[in-house]
């Protein structure tokens, strides 16, 4: 009898290491706007982050020294509300024991999350918060992976200057932290470029009818429009500018036109330019990770949704964290932070480098925006890169009217 029991006992002892040694795991916490007005872009960002996670886990996990760590996400729905972000990031840190954090989508929510992450000394990488003020508060553990708002419209202004150095510009933008920061900087850049500011006004984010504003734009004699906000208002602006035949020669709208869904506007989408953190046609040569073409192709194959810059920014937060851990050879937060501080790399997303100046620690100082425009190609609306010259796939259509 004892000999009979010995055989299974030996079997269990041999198998035990497989059962007992649980996989080493890194827990990354984040909130996602699964509901609320920020849903579209936030979910796109999550899609990119999940794609990165799945790729890393399929390759065996992140290598840190002699160990490999699988990545586990803990996510909650912040409902696009700042109050929820505060509660949920505290929960992610205290209850869920997240070792690293990814930021929520939008500058407003990022600013709220950053208060919590800094309070607890947790590294947080941001793929969707461009307002610079958040990164000028003496943070130590916050790392911005995308271009700051100050440069969102730089490309649009440069591209316009090449066509019309004496443009009369109307800035009309949503009254939210991100859009205000973009236009505040763009105003200075436009004046420096020699443009006349014909109109500058903000609108409430809940605005549904832009007819009065568009009549004001027409009255001002502006021939170029720069502004917008986020998704619904940007698309409504584009439609109404078209319906009311505003006669503008150049239209640059933030965020909304980057979405593949912008084509539902039909002819109203034609000619609209959008500043973008990333487009599939960019030609960056990465130091590591996928090429832009590979990323675009594999994202579509996996998610059945075309990659946009929100998806790319979700992926890059994971890729840069992975790179820092691998460089540090450890998941110790101080070592990873030191590695992030030293980051100066080119990936499919472009050049990324974080400021180490204590006054702006973690602010992105390497990445550049590109400018895309919706153009007709073979009878179909396609987004073409029109600026900078080094990256463009088509010339800018100017004037529109």
């Amino acid at each position: 009898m004892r000999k009979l029991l010995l055989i299974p006992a030996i079997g269990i002892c041999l198998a035990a290491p497989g059962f007992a040694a649980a996989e080493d795991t890194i827990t990354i916490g984040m909130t996602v706007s699964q509901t609320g007005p920020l849903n579209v872009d936030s979910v796109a960002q999550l899609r990119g982050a999940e794609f990165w996670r799945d790729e890393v886990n399929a390759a065996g996990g992140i290598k840190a020294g002699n160990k490999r760590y699988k990545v586990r996400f803990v996510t909650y729905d912040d409902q696009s509300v700042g109050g929820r972000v505060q509660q949920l990031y505290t929960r992610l840190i205290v209850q869920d024991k997240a070792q690293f954090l990814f930021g929520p989508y939008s500058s407003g929510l990022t600013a709220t999350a950053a208060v919590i992450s800094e309070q607890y000394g947790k590294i947080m990488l941001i793929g969707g918060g461009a307002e610079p003020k958040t990164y000028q508060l003496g943070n130590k553990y916050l790392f911005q992976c995308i271009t700051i708002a100050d440069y969102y419209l730089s490309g649009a202004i440069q591209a316009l200057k090449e066509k019309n150095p004496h443009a009369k510009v109307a800035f009309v933008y949503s009254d939210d932290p991100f859009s205000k920061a973009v236009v505040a900087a763009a105003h200075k850049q436009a004046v420096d470029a020699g443009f006349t500011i014909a109109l500058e006004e903000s609108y409430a984010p809940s605005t549904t009818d832009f007819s009065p504003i568009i009549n004001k734009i027409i009255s001002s004699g502006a021939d170029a429009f720069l502004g917008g906000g986020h998704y619904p208002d940007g698309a409504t602006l584009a439609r109404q500018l078209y319906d009311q035949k505003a006669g503008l020669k150049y239209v640059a709208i933030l965020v909304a036109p980057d979405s593949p869904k912008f084509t539902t506007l039909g002819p109203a989408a034609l000619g609209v330019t959008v500043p973008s953190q990333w487009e599939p046609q960019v030609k960056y040569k990465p130091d590591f990770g996928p090429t832009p073409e590979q990323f675009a192709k594999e994202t579509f194959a996996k998610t059945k949704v075309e990659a946009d810059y929100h998806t790319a920014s979700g992926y890059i937060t994971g890729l840069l964290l992975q790179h820092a851990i691998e460089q540090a050879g450890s998941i110790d937060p101080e070592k990873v932070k030191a590695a992030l501080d030293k980051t100066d790399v080119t990936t499919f997303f472009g050049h990324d480098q974080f400021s180490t100046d204590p006054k702006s620690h973690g602010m992105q100082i390497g990445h550049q925006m590109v400018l895309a425009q919706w153009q007709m190609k073979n009878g179909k609306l396609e987004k073409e890169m029109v600026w900078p010259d080094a990256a463009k796939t088509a010339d800018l259509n100017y004037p529109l009217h």
Partner: protein
Amino acid sequence: MIGLLASILDGVLVGAVYGLAAMGITLIWGVMHVVNLTHGAMIVAGMFAVYLFVGATGMPAYAALAPVIVGGFLAGVALYWVAIHRMIGQPPLMSLLATFSVNLVLIGLGTDVWGTVLFNVPVSLPGFSLGRYTFPGTHLMAAALTAVIAGALYFFLYRTRAGKAVRAVAGNREAAELVGIPTTRILALSCGLGVALACVSGALIATLFPFTVLSGDAYQLKSFVVTVLGGMGNPTGALVAGVALGLLEGVATPFMPVSWTLVIEFVLFVVVLIAFPGGLLSVRLRRGRKPG
């Protein structure tokens, strides 16, 4: 000068549609003293109805209005039986909470099915121009159809037996019961009409602007403001107030930052509440004498 005229005309055209939306809320309040917080969701339902109709049939968006009105009416009757019937006679907070709950369910379902992506109903109608200013044909058509629907509602309420019954119930439900009017059925009918108005106004709004599942909130808020301005329970007042609000937006915008428009609207709202608690046009739907 032309710019100001253009702004005023645009404001009036779009304001008429807001007035139509508000007529739905005010009708339901006038008859059964229920604040219908599914109003925004029903506006969005009308938007999606026209979008799906156009996608499925390829017909012009305006052909969807009749089915939207019928569908909205049936949805309103269903809403009455599901969420409102047992709340009649209860404190107003009960019906408010009941309709709010239905609203959350509808928005949650909508978000689950469609997300919050943008939808657009492509409509192309020739407009007319005044100098550099263009009045889209869609705005003109929406205002014209609003006038037709409002006229149809007026005819129904003041020239038909059923409409008389609605007004009787609004005036005094007990007295209406005593003369043999089936008041419960009339309440359901009124709810159906109110929701039909919300749905058809959503359908018209969808021909003007792109929309998402969450678009209803902004129009619901505007509807409440318009309802109070026009007088609770006064459908004509709601339409007039909608036009007036549009006119205000049109007049104010050329002279001040656009972001002040909301401030002015709500200041006006508060002033009206204080000075005219019954609304600017406080002739009510009900015309019965109060029992002595």
